[in-house]
């Protein structure tokens, strides 16, 4: 299987490990992610904040680039997925908007591209059973807390491919890798997102609640599909001990990294050095 791929800017920079591990894992599973030859910013939060047509230009250009490659687009960054998918929904249901945007970008996007999250493709196209069959180094005994970015869950009718109130796709994947996902209540609670820019204290508290809940449930690592969640949960731990005495840091990984490890791939470019809480001791303990 070959599928057009939009990594998003974060996966080209701070979340390079997410990207490298994802491409290598998909290739090992016989699914090739073919990066769009020309892509631009998805528009981040802006396109969906206000009713301004101009803001839809960037994601429409991404959809146009995808249309040239086929009828499906795999998106890795959850934020990009949310933005591009919702823009696509709008263009599919609003002929007037589609016409205006096509006129503006001097091209013809026809609304035919299916926008999919990479975890969704892993579940529905590759299949978790096929993943399980391809595992070379099962993550036996590793207790993990699956943590879901809200961007693949909300708004449910527009973007969710999982139960928005109690998602389990990531738990199911981790189980296929041989790990043991813990039962915990914070799997879809807000990480604070961009509140980190405005109020560090607020995000720090939100992160603490999530991370301490994961550890109370016995998790040795938190695993996520969202670059912003990963960043918040990982970095906030640097000075968490100062606010919460006795706090022990817990590694926060991307699912693609654990996928690559379980598939027995070379993990040299999985970006371990970029993590604030070192992941390597835990991985080494797995043997």
């Amino acid at each position, binding site marked *: 299987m070959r599928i057009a791929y939009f990594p998003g800017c974060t996966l080209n920079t701070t979340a390079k490990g997410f990207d490298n591990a994802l491409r290598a894992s998909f290739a090992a599973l016989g699914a090739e992610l073919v990066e769009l030859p020309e892509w631009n910013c998805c528009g981040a939060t802006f396109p969906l904040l206000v009713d301004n047509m101009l803001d839809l230009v960037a994601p429409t250009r991404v959809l146009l680039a995808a249309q040239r490659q086929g009828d499906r687009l795999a998106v890795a960054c959850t934020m990009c997925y949310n933005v591009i998918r919702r823009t696509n929904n709008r263009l599919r249901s609003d002929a007037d908007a589609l016409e205006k945007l096509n006129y503006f970008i001097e091209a013809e996007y026809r609304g035919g591209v299916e926008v999919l999250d990479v975890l969704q493709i892993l579940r529905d196209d590759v299949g978790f059973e096929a993943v399980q069959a391809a595992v070379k180094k099962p993550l036996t005994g590793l207790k993990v807390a699956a943590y879901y970015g809200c961007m693949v869950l909300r*708004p*449910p009718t527009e973007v969710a491919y999982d*139960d*928005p*109130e*109690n998602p389990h796709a990531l738990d199911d994947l981790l189980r296929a890798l041989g790990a043991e996902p813990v039962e915990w*209540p914070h799997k879809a609670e807000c990480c604070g997102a961009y509140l980190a820019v405005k109020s560090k204290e607020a995000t720090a508290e939100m992160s603490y609640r999530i991370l301490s809940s994961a550890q109370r449930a016995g998790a040795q690592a938190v695993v996520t599909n969202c670059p912003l969640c990963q960043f918040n949960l990982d970095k906030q731990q640097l000075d968490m001990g100062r606010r919460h005495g006795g706090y022990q840091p817990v590694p926060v990984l991307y699912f693609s990294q654990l996928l690559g490890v379980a598939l027995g791939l070379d993990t040299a470019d999985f970006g371990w050095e970029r993590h604030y809480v070192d992941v390597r001791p835990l991985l080494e303990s797995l043997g």
Partner: protein
Amino acid sequence: MAIAPIQRVLIIGAGIAGMQAALDIANAGYEVVLVEREPSIGGRMAQLSETFPTLDCAQCILTPRTVEVGHHEHIRLRTYSEVEAVEGQLGDFRVRIRRRAAYVNWEVCTGCGLCQEKCPKKVISDFERGIGPRKAIYTLSPQAVPNKPVIDRQSCIYFERGKCRACEKFCPTGAIDFEQEDAIIEERVGAIIVATGYDLYPLSLLGEYGYGEVPDVIDSLAFERLLSASGPTAGQVRRPSDGAEPKEVVFIQCAGSRDPELHKPYCSKICCMYTAKHAMLYKHKVHDGQAYVFYIDIRSAGKRYEEFVQRAMEEERVLYVRGKVSRVFRENGKVMVWGTDTLSGQNVEVAADLVVLAPAMVPKAGSDVVAELLDLATDEHGWFTAAEANLQPVETKRAGVFLAGAAVGPMDIPETVAQASGAAAQVLSLFAQWAERNGNA
């Protein structure tokens, strides 16, 4: 019409709606064929502990009715049966009914109950809503009408392994018949009343409340069984996981109702009242217990309904919290409830011992099959559609076919009974018109 129309009615469903219509028509001297899928009649009402707003014992006011239906000379009761085919039209419907094999000869059975006592196989009872057992040979309850057992073939040890036959050994009248087969019964009727009732929206679809996998998160019908003197705990409030008496109970209304995005957009209408009743009865049984009710709005439109809810709040000190619950999960033997109080703007966390959900009402499983058999319209949720919502609420677009009770949509007992009598009156009116026409001919 070439032949005289048949003054006999088929009623599908023997809950309180079907029973009421059957009695009204039978008491007027006409024959009724009453078909029920379960082994005995009474429907949902037979599962209830008490009724709102009077707190009448449901079983006590229902039993005289079930007994009357069971003995009525004009009512042909076909329990453990389903309608398979309907042909013909107004005045002359030909109906095929499949009576499932009970593996018990009901003609010979005296209903002594010894077989149930001796049967070694315990299974989880649907009637007890999953919180109590029954045997592989069973009646729904000790007050069952007819009081004749059936063998559940899937659970029976003899059917599974070819050995056991304990019931047969102990039966004093030799009523057990492992060779019994389904029977096909043909009936001819002139009119049909559909009274198939409702189910509750399954907890397995409510991820935020634990998908029904947390044992101490139960639905409202299960709580009815907990409160019921004839229930698995003999009316004592005990939580399913460890049998302890719950001291903190959280009731969550609108579990799946009024949720257009993910579940059902409509109000299920009866939950505000029965939740007030549940909280009240809980307080009557556990004096030092605390009951919390999470609600969106309180809808208590009905005679003496609002007063009833006020009584729960003021006299019984039930704590009403206006807001939704976002998550229910297990922690340290408790059921943790995260919710919000929209009046104070605070988030609320309750460490509960038991959580009772009031799930949305949905059409009874299999009512789509009935709709297809009879070529009846249903709405997007599967509820039967009346011919005209305002002025023909119990009629359908199909001549001679009428609706009664919660098959049409969420409805409480008084409304159901009124509807059923309405449907019965429609049928009797038809019969009277036919009699007059034949008399004049």
